[in-house]
């Protein structure tokens, strides 16, 4: 994982990507017990091309293939890990990226989505494994519930949160 993050940081300093933060199961591992996963989700801002509003992941793939990485389906293998780059597709993911937490992995600086944004994103995704992860966040008390509530209200997830709580927390 260290070499994966070093490569992503190099991409950032070379201007291929802007701000980034780890999400998904690896991001959740920052707060929770490690849980097996097949890939690393990296939320990433892409530099905009002057005169165009289109965002493209092509510069990332071009850069990484030149540096010896290989494509595997929707992933690109960096170091030992398949990585999926995810440009934020709405206001909540943009906010999550902007408010990510700085940390270090074996001396390599990186950023991880906040616990509250990870919960909100998991709630929206709504798969069984997402709900199980939310329960873990709540059991461990690592999410600030006031901050989480603000995010959920701001991004139209308050009703879904109420339904989640009724189904999974009140039985």
């Amino acid at each position: 994982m260290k070499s994966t993050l070093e490569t992503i940081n190099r991409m950032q300093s070379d201007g291929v990507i802007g701000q980034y933060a780890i999400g998904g199961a690896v991001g959740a591992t920052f707060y929770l017990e490690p849980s097996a996963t097949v890939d690393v989700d990296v939320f990433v801002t892409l530099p905009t091309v002057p005169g165009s509003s289109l965002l493209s992941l092509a510069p990332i793939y071009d850069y990484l293939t030149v540096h010896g990485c290989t494509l595997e389906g929707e992933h690109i293998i960096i170091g030992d890990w398949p990585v999926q780059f995810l440009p934020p597709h709405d206001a909540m993911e943009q906010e999550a990226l902007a408010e990510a937490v700085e940390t270090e992995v074996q001396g390599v600086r990186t950023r991880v989505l906040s616990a509250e944004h990870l919960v909100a994103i998991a709630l929206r995704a709504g798969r069984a494994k997402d709900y199980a992860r939310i329960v873990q966040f709540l059991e461990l008390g690592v999410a600030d519930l006031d901050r989480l509530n603000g995010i959920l209200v701001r991004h139209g997830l308050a009703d879904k949160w109420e339904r989640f709580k009724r189904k999974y927390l009140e039985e």
Partner: protein
Amino acid sequence: MDTALDRERRKRLASLPFSQKLKILDKLRNRARVIASSPLREKAIHFVSIRTGK
């Protein structure tokens, strides 16, 4: 079933430094890859396909 012991174990693992937890993820991933590429697994899939006819 989720016992108090399970919860305590999860809490202990969650409190490890991120670097250490990522090393555990590396190990879990390597183990999954070994299992996926094991000839025993191929035999197991073959066995299942004989049993189920699929």
